[in-house]
């Protein structure tokens, strides 16, 4: 490979200081909505984003449905009902605060995006007369057509609309800039966030953000257990650069986390076992409730929660007799009887009855509007499907009226992973917070995937906006605080070090070694010995290998910093695992030295944070946030007027 000229200016000797009332770290859905909320309150807002805001984040290129929009005009459920169902479904290891916010305010955020130019309803009458379409509003629903709280949306229109709105509101956007470290000041023994530092990933310029309040909205960790050095961008579900730098920064600064011991057996890794999400025949999420057939073309039956075979396609979208509503979506895997919706017959039962692999999705057998909404709208709007699936497969000749699309493996995941091939998926751990979405450190707030037990776009948007408005309000009580020069110099030294190493180690080699270590020492079955040895190994990497890391430009430097963050997050995970001395079914946590499952005394959140190099932990009751409806109302009197505006339309 020929070396060529780096096209951007070299600014590694430059420093820029920015002042903002509210600093938002991360420009995905959560960060953008946080910026909108704070700017609407008249605050000076700075937003830092590693990519380009117009398409960045997991929702950047699109998404096809918005969950838990319980306050939309067609909804037959209340925010309280759905939030409480989620909490119960996850045995209390759920984020009651954030889910209630999502259920209560998600619809408001959809109306916001519509006012910015995003498409949330079938304005052209493309699906007129379809079962899932409300004729009066043009809203289209997914999953439960009876209760209408999940809305099909044209998510590919959302980020460009948000970006335009941020510019209109005068938000200062720092793109191609990685936030690397939080600035924290100790005042009378108490810590307070006073901003952050970062680096431009094209020019190497060093940035200091001085802020009254800060919102962390930097997604969740990835590439912990799964890494492919050749096809890095395919090895996880979320974007290449969404790897949990916000978690690492938070942990280094003393932010408190919970549920970090939870990880699930892999679900998506298209560089390895699985296919790209929603690109194969299946009947989940984007593809719910596609007709599935076996190798002979025999239709696979859908059954309700009582095992009753459903005769029509329509019945797949309605609750069972005597059931108020059912839950489906991002974090719902195999729900409890109370919330279980229609599903194809269990795989083992299918084998017993003689159904033959491979299975296929056969949309030709569905009503025309259902076929068109899956292959066309949903596969098309769902993030990574518009071009590489819908457009490319159509060019290859795929026509859902005359072809069946193959399904792989035995279910929607298109592959079976090994127990040690794990991911932070299905409502994983994250930042612990109060009803203001404030962390344990004053002035630092969190939103979206950085919160514990997070799930989808509606969650990100609703919590983003909420954190933005709370951070805006809190900023009124603080003044700017200049960071210590020493902190700045230490950070610069840390960030630029790999540029001075000649012929050193590539970041990929370290990432691969970390993920192998995590598979070996923090796999499907854990115990104290393994976890301690894992920590020792990672600490040796930190001491001996990190100084060898070498790169040639700011882009590679950013990737190298990401691996340092991955290393930090791995230590957080290993330590969190050590703190739980029993196994847990809802946390997908198995220990060979503590095999008892969910003993009474451990049915709680175990938190973890660092202070002066020591690990501190506490136990918090699962319902620490109180009654979600009552508490929400108490904390959000200042939002009542704004909320009424949305509800009046």
């Amino acid at each position, binding site marked *: 490979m020929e070396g060529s000229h780096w096209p951007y200016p070299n600014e590694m*000797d430059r420093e820029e200081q920015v002042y903002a009332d509210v600093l938002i770290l991360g420009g995905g859905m959560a960060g953008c909505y946080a910026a909108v909320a704070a700017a609407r309150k008249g605050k000076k807002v700075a937003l830092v984003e590693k990519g*380009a805001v117009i*398409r960045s984040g997991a929702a950047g290129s699109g998404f096809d449905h918005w969950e838990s929009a319980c306050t939309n005009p067609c909804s037959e459920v209340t925010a309280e009902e759905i939030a409480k169902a989620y909490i119960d479904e996850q045995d209390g290891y759920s984020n009651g605060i954030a889910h209630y916010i999502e259920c209560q305010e998600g619809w408001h955020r959809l109306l916001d995006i519509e006012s910015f130019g995003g498409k949330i309803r079938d304005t052209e009458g493309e699906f007129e007369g379809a079962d899932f379409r409300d004729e009066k509003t043009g809203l289209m629903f997914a999953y439960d057509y009876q209760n209408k709280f999940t809305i099909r949306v044209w998510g590919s229109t959302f980020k460009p609309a948000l970006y335009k709105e941020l510019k209109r509101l005068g938000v200062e956007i720092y793109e191609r800039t990685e936030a690397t470290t939080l600035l924290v000041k100790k005042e009378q023994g108490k810590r307070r966030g006073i901003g952050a530092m970062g680096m431009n990933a094209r020019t190497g310029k060093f940035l200091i953000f001085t802020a009254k309040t800060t919102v962390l909205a930097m997604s969740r960790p990835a590439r912990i257990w799964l890494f492919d050095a050749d096809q890095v961008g395919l090895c996880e579900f979320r974007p*290449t650069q969404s790897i949990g730098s916000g978690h690492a920064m938070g942990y280094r600064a003393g932010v408190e986390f919970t549920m970090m011991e939870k990880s699930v057996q892999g679900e998506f890794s298209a560089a390895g076992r699985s296919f790209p999400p929603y*690109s194969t*025949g299946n009947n989940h999420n984007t593809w719910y409730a596609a007709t599935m057939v076996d190798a002979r*073309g025999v239709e696979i039956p859908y059954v309700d929660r009582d095992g009753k075979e459903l005769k029509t396609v329509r019945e797949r979208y309605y609750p069972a007799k005597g059931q108020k509503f059912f839950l489906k979506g991002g974090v719902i895997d195999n729900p409890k009887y109370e919330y279980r919706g229609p599903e194809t017959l269990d795989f083992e039962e299918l084998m017993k009855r003689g159904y033959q692999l491979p299975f296929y999705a056969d949309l030709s057998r569905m009503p025309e509007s259902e076929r068109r909404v899956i292959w066309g709208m949903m596969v098309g709007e769902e993030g990574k499907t518009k071009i590489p699936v819908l457009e490319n497969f159509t060019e290859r000749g795929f026509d859902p009226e005359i072809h069946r*699309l*193959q399904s792989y493996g035995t279910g929607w995941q298109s592959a079976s992973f090994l127990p040690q091939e794990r991911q932070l998926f299905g409502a994983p751990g994250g930042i612990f917070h109060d009803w203001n979405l404030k962390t344990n450190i004053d002035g630092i707030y969190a939103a979206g995937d950085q919160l514990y037990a997070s799930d989808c776009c509606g969650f990100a948007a609703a919590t983003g906006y909420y954190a933005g408005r709370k951070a805006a309000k809190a900023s009124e009580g603080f003044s700017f605080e200049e960071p210590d020069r020493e902190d700045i110099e230490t950070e610069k030294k840390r960030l630029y070090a790999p540029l001075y190493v000649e012929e050193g180690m590539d970041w990929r080699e370290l990432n691969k070694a970390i993920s192998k270590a995590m598979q070996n020492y923090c796999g499907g079955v854990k115990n104290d010995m393994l976890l301690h040895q894992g920590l020792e190994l990672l600490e040796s990497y930190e001491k001996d290998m990190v100084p060898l890391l070498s790169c040639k*430009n700011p882009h590679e430097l950013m990737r190298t910093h990401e691996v340092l963050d991955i290393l930090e997050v791995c230590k957080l995970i290993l330590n969190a695992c050590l703190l739980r001395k029993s196994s847990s079914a809802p946390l997908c946590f198995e220990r060979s030295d503590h095999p008892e499952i969910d003993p009474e005394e451990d049915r709680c959140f175990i938190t973890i944070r660092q202070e002066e190099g020591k690990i501190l932990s506490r136990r918090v009751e699962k319902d620490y946030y109180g009654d979600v409806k009552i508490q929400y109302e108490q904390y959000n009197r200042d939002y009542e007027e704004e909320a009424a505006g949305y509800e009046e339309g």
Partner: protein
Amino acid sequence: MKKVEFEAKAVSCSVKPLVFDEEKCVGCNACANVCQVDIMIPSEEKGKPPVVLYPGECYYCGSCVMACPVKGAVRLRHPLMNQTKFVEIGE
């Protein structure tokens, strides 16, 4: 900090996620500017397609194709192993 000279060297990858049609591409770099993973750099030659420096980091989201002003100037394709099979529905 003491400045270090930056170098741009393409990293090899077993697949080519992006293919440009040099006849159609106007070299506007809209694709490079929208890519959240920043896998491309503008070509040194004006009017030419950008250089895919980091193909392995591609996240296959398709934003580059959506941003391209000329249909067909840039194409995104999943690796061969990820091309789902489909079959014609029999009688």
